[in-house]
């Protein structure tokens, strides 16, 4: 190639390089077809341009993907927030309905009134179950479910479950029994709330689908070593059974055995999905055997640790606090009048001295001027919410800075406990609250903090 041709060629290469510098990758250095060094250079540059173009496209695709991921995460966050808000919005009136119904049932009613109130109670409980199932399902789907490891009495838990379901079983003349094999430790360590949820779900399903006969909960245990036990729970009934072709899909979301089942028995179709997830997320397995018109047996295995003597002592200590809420000064921080009335009714039964604050701001003012033994704190309130009120109380330079605070909230989403604790609150109870649970939490709190600031308690 002559010098002149070389100069023309080099200018061509430079033009291509400048285009690439400007971001135009759809350019190529032309090849002469001589397969010489100039063509080799051109080929090399062209392939490098191609490489850059490909990487730029990949970069752009990654950027798009990142953007899409961020949007998906935002949407997920919005969904969670929506769920939290809905949960709060639904639970607040439910709290009032369930609580007021309980109060009414404790009063003198004529038989017709009692029947009506009981019907309200059953409907409210059913509605609450459905709400809880939808919320649990959302938590599982979002991977936000966590498991606790606390000591518990297995037999007490079973007694409690039977007590809860006995009324419904009796109303259908069904026998509901349980048995625990002799080698099972009295105390176990695990998530008793989730175990209760699984057993109640399966046993109430059995009651629902059994017209006559019995429901039996049997527990067998196998010692894996000195501390670890594998428990087998078997829930069997003499109910309608599940058609063979439906057994494989019965654990799937929104599935019931037949459409007729949904019409006749109701339910969300989420119960068994939740049960399966709760078992499997704890490292267990669930299976079922069923014969149409003969009955169904659900069997699941869960690992537990054996509880030790220290746990037992703690259990014993708990009983020392029976009837110790008398004359306790309770500051009830709650903006909703119905909820205030409801909590007041419950606290009155325990002979507590109740003081009210309608929002967080009023509560902080009261705490800076008065002495309380314990604070029951709602979360979502005008002026100052429960989190900020707790933070302000914890910043105070008075003995009241360490007053026990139990959050009482209709927010039922996972993570709420952490949020309350990081705001300085000691414990958490979700609304509609269980009276026994509130009593125990209050007793525990007063014992743990050993605070008796005054009020004649």
């Amino acid at each position, binding site marked *: 190639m002559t010098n002149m041709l070389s100069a023309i060629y080099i200018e061509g290469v430079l033009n291509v390089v400048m285009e690439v510098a400007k971001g135009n990758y759809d350019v190529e250095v032309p*090849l002469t077809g001589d397969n010489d060094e100039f*063509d080799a250079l051109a080929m*090399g540059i062209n392939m490098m341009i191609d490489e850059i173009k490909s990487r730029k496209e990949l970069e752009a695709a990654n950027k798009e993907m990142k953007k899409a991921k961020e949007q998906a995460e935002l949407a997920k966050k919005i969904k969670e927030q929506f769920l939290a808000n809905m949960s709060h919005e639904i639970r607040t009136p439910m709290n009032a309905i369930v609580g007021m119904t309980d109060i009414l049932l404790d009063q003198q009613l004529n038989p017709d009134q009692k029947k009506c109130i009981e019907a309200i109670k059953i409907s409210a409980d059913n509605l609450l179950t459905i709400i809880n199932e939808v919320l649990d399902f959302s938590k599982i789907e979002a991977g936000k479910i966590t498991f606790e490891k606390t000591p518990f009495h297995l037999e007490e838990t079973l007694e409690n479950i039977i007590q809860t379901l006995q009324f419904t079983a009796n109303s259908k003349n069904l026998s509901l029994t349980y048995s625990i094999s002799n080698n099972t430790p009295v105390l176990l360590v695990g998530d008793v709330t989730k175990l209760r949820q699984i057993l109640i779900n399966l046993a109430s399903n059995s009651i629902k689908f059994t017209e006559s006969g019995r429901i039996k909960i049997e527990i067998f245990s196998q010692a894996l070593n000195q501390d670890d036990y594998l428990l087998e729970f078997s829930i069997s009934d003499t109910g309608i059974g599940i058609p063979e072709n439906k057994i494989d899909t019965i654990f799937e979301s929104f599935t019931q055995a037949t459409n007729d089942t949904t019409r006749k028995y109701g339910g969300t179709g989420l119960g068994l999905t939740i049960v399966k997830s709760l078992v499997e997320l704890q490292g267990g397995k669930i299976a079922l055997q069923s014969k149409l018109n003969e009955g169904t047996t659900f069997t699941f295995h869960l690992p537990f640790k054996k509880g030790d003597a220290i746990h037992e002592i703690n259990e014993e200590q708990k009983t020392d606090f029976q009837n110790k809420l008398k004359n306790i000064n309770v500051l009830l921080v709650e903006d909703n009048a119905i909820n205030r009335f409801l909590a007041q009714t419950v606290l009155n039964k325990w002979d507590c001295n109740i003081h009210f604050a309608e929002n967080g701001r009023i509560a902080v003012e009261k705490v800076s001027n008065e002495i309380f033994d314990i604070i029951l704190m709602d979360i979502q309130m005008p002026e100052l919410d429960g989190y900020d009120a707790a933070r302000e109380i914890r910043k105070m330079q008075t003995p009241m800075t360490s007053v026990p605070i139990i959050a009482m909230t209709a927010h039922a989403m996972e993570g709420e406990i952490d949020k309350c604790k990081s705001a300085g609150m000691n414990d958490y109870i979700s609304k509609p609250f269980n009276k026994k649970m509130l009593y125990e939490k209050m007793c525990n709190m007063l014992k743990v903090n050993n605070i008796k600031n005054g009020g004649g308690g």
Partner: protein
Amino acid sequence: MGTQTIIQEYYVDRHHYCLTDDYIICVTLNGEVDYEQALRCKAVSTKLHTMFEGPKRVLVDLNKAGKQSAEARKVFAELTDLGARPVKVALWGLHPVARIIASFFAGITDNKKSKFFSDKEKALSWLKEKIEP
């Protein structure tokens, strides 16, 4: 070296793939290779690789080869990494363009596995050398 006899051959457009009686897969690239062609080349190459047992050796003639797009090279990279797994790839060509294309090919393969030659016989000799473990 002697002449090679073709046992099986395939064409992907103008690109030629064959298996010779000395169990070497010979590839002659003719012109540019784009993504679609690369996918078909990959299918043919995999077919030839699965036709016999033992180490797979490939001889690539780059004398008439044109530009391989980046996407095409990614397909070839998958071929050497996942599918056919040749133990040796000898690339050969008489001119500088072939050398450049071979360099880009080397960028997507294990350096020990591939080598450029400007002589076909030397390329074949290297392929036939005892394969070190």
